[in-house]
């Protein structure tokens, strides 16, 4: 995708928003300009930035945790048929459960604060990464494994030089696929038992304070959070997997 086209699409969407806002002409749909003004006000003199950072921290912490645990587990399962035979039925049953329904349960167990939010996003990312890394490791051509073994590689060197680099694209693909869901579920999780985070902020301004421009400001920040993470994954992929774009 060209940058210019992305910019044009962005401008077109803002234009559409403007037209709709003018047509609807009610406080529940302010124009982009008034939202921008509110956004600036809330960021500089309000506490929107704190809410944003709270949400950002929760996503980043859970992503790191998920990558650090799910990627090695996926590699282990992918290279051993026996381990995979044992665990794959468990994963098969747990993977499709929509993790968002676990929000009330996790909240009951872990109470207020960051921990339940981090756990719930962690669960979403964990399964996605686990499954994709496992499949990418299992899908490595046996010829490749054999030829690296013939160079003297035992199990440890195979992990270091084959399974680890081979799982990198799978980790990034998993993140790309699940970052949107993660932010969506974060929103839901932040509606409960917290006074920090964009979910709380949006709900508070929309349903209690009736400050619609500020609410939209929160929605914009939440969108930017999702978009930023998505861009971040793209950037990492270009930096870490140059062979995918070069070939």
């Amino acid at each position, binding site marked *: 995708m060209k940058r210019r086209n992305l910019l044009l699409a962005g401008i077109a969407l803002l234009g559409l928003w403007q037209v709709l806002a003018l047509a609807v002409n009610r406080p529940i749909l302010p124009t982009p300009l008034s939202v921008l003004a509110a956004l600036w006000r809330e960021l500089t003199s309000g506490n929107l930035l704190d809410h944003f950072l709270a949400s950002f921290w929760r996503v980043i912490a859970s992503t790191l945790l998920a990558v650090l645990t799910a990627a090695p587990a996926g590699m282990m399962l992918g290279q051993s048929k026996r381990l995979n035979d044992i665990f794959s039925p468990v994963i098969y049953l747990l993977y499709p459960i929509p993790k968002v329904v676990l929000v009330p349960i996790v909240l009951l167990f872990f109470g207020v604060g960051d921990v339940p939010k981090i756990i719930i996003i962690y669960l979403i990312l964990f399964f996605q990464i686990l499954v994709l890394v496992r499949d990418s490791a299992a899908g490595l051509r046996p*010829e*490749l494994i054999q030829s690296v073994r013939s*160079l003297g590689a035992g199990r440890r060197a195979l992990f270091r030089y084959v399974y680890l680099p081979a799982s*990198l694209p799978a980790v990034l693909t998993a993140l790309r696929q699940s970052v949107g869901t993660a932010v969506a579920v974060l929103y839901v999780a932040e509606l409960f038992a917290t006074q920090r985070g964009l979910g709380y902020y949006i709900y508070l301004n929309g349903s209690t304070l009736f400050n619609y421009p500020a609410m939209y400001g929160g929605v914009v920040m939440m969108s930017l959070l999702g978009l930023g993470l998505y861009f971040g994954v793209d950037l990492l992929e270009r930096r870490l997997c140059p062979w995918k774009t070069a070939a």
Partner: protein
Amino acid sequence: MIALDQITFAYPGAEPLFQDFSWRVGRGEAWAVLGTSGCGKSTLLYLLAGLRLVQSGQVCIDGAPLTRPRPQTGLIIQDYGLLPWATVRQNVELGLRVRNFYGPDGTHAPRGYTPSLEVDPWLERLGIGGVAGQFPGQISGGQRQRTAIARTLALRPDLMLMDEPFSSLDAPTREGLQRLMLELWAEQALTMVVVTHSIEEAAVLGQRILLLGKAPNRAAQVIENPGAAEMRYREGDDYGRMCRLLRERLEET
């Protein structure tokens, strides 16, 4: 160099490919293993590489029974042997990196090995210095096989095993690499075993040719082809006669 004594090998649930099969390869010899698909010729190579183990009998290399891949044996396969995420240079360094990773422990790397990552002479010798920074997906099939050869030679092997190394390449590239392989064989004092389904390739690369037939293989059928290593052999009459002979023998099996 290689001694197979009364070996038997079968894949689980299948008829044995080799039964009480014995075969000898002397140091410095250039062998081709010729046979149709399913005869067990790739399996034979994997047995020699220590990647598969016999059910009975013994595979000895350099006098020692083989129980795992041996650091001085190089293996080159048809395709898919290179790491797609690593550049040509990193791929050529891979074997050395693996050795450096373990250190000279005698199993993964020979004892007395000094860690190094010096591959430039090999990149130059194989003519791939110009593409050293590129990924396998960006270079030609011939260059990929040159990379695989450089990676193996960087480990200074004494035994070179090749499984259909050039069969996915076009004719001029294939002939160029066959010539190069014979040069390297002489220059590096290698013992070479090339597995192929191509009669021409067997005649060009094998000074001695092992013919495999329908499984199970019991006795080694060997055809002498002393002219092979000569550079102009392909243009002479002996070459044509050898190809005809091999074709007839192959049809008999």
